[in-house]
């Protein structure tokens, strides 16, 4: 019984340490972001890894999600005889919710894990210490480019995934359910508001930040050898997933209750 409480207390302390450490990393990163010089080619390199290289898989998954959404909605809508609304349901759920979240989850699995493993290996092989010896701040050198790249590339990727998801719904509705092509597009863009698009993109920006910060944090906190790197990578991905979904919940509630 005593052990249980000690265990719980330690877990809770570890949780608090995690948030404190993450907060400290966030503060340092924002400070270093605005201190010149900013090495642009490092940002571009990370942006290519996070954005350009993620595009095929994000597109593929967005297309599938669009098709699935259309089919699942059709299942119910055909009973009610209102297939017209599939277009607006697919468009709204892609742009407001699924576009940003699916993109963020894919990028977290693809890029977040890579970042955690990369920085973790550097930490284990003492390259991070070497950077400090060379008077290069590791936060500025490693975290700032990744933060900028991820937080700027995720909204762009989300735009791609929105349009491709809508295309997926379009394919099903036009070629399977026989809805007129112009009708589908008309309803899609009639049902969307600027607010829907921009809340989605804002979410994507924050998801990008979450991925960058958590992955870098876990990478820097690696202890032990190769095993530690593996554990840190797993932890980074799991924590990022949880935080993305939690942040999404908070954002959605925020936009639902405060800016309806």
């Amino acid at each position, binding site marked *: 019984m005593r052990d249980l409480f000690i265990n719980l207390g330690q877990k809770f302390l570890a949780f608090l340490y995690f948030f404190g450490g993450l907060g400290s990393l966030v503060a340092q990163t924002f400070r270093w972001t605005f201190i010149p010089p900013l090495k642009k*080619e490092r940002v571009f390199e990370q942006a*290519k890894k996070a*954005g350009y290289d993620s*595009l095929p898989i994000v597109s593929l998954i967005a297309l599938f999600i669009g098709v699935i959404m259309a089919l699942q909605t059709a299942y119910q809508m055909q009973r009610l005889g209102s297939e017209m609304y599939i277009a607006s349901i697919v468009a709204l759920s892609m742009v407001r919710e699924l576009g940003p979240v699916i993109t963020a989850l894919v990028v977290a699995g693809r890029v977040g894990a890579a970042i955690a493993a990369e920085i973790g290996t550097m930490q284990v092989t003492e390259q991070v210490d070497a950077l400090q010896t060379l008077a290069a701040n590791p936060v500025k050198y490693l975290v700032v480019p990744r933060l900028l790249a991820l937080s700027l590339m995720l909204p762009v*990727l989300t735009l791609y995934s*929105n349009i491709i998801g809508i295309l997926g719904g379009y394919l099903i509705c036009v070629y399977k359910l026989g809805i007129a092509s112009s009708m589908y*597009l008309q309803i899609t*863009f009639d049902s*969307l508001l*600027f607010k829907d698009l921009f809340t989605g993109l804002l979410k994507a920006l924050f998801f990008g930040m979450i991925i960058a910060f958590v992955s870098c944090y876990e990478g820097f906190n690696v202890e032990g050898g190769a095993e530690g790197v593996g554990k840190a990578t797993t932890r980074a991905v799991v924590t990022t997933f949880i935080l993305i979904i939690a942040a999404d919940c908070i954002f959605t509630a925020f936009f639902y209750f405060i800016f309806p």
Partner: protein
Amino acid sequence: MIFGKTKLELKLGVFVFVGMVILVLFILLIGDFQTWTSGYEVNFLFNFVNGVKIGAPVRFSGVDVGEVKAIKFLLNPPELKPKVQIVGWVKKEIKIPLDSTVWVNTLGLLGEKYIEVMPGEDFQNHLAKGESLVGHDPIAMHEVAQLAKNIAGDLDESLVKIKNGEGTIGKLLYDDTIYNELEALVKDVRRHPWKLFFKTKEKPEKK
């Protein structure tokens, strides 16, 4: 350092450029291309608008030609009764005659409200920018309900009377005197059809 030379920058440039194109596409399609159609604003005055919202369509002869831009209260000092001023934006080529009828209509049974403009006859004089047109107030739902309730009450009263066999219709339905009389008459006529033609028989008896 020279920018814009490497393959990496080219790939990234293409990626971001296409992303921006998608963004512009979304914005233009969501915005309904209103950015490059020009129009003007006119006012419609109502006492009651039944929940018209900003962005509700304005229909002229049943065609969407604009939307509601703003809804204001207009306080008239002499009357003290506030009027609702609906600022509607309509396309430039649409000319609303001054004798048009304007009312708030509903899309479907419970659908959204919109401003319906039925054009008048006088196409020489039309509404200029910023001018006002007084609209016909929609009937409030509770008034309709009240009317229906009154009608139902009256009907109910009559039905109760009819059921109790009061009044002409009540007696017709529930009192079988007439039926019996008719039946007797028909039987009598059948038995003695000549009665129908034989009219003058009774007269001599009386005499």
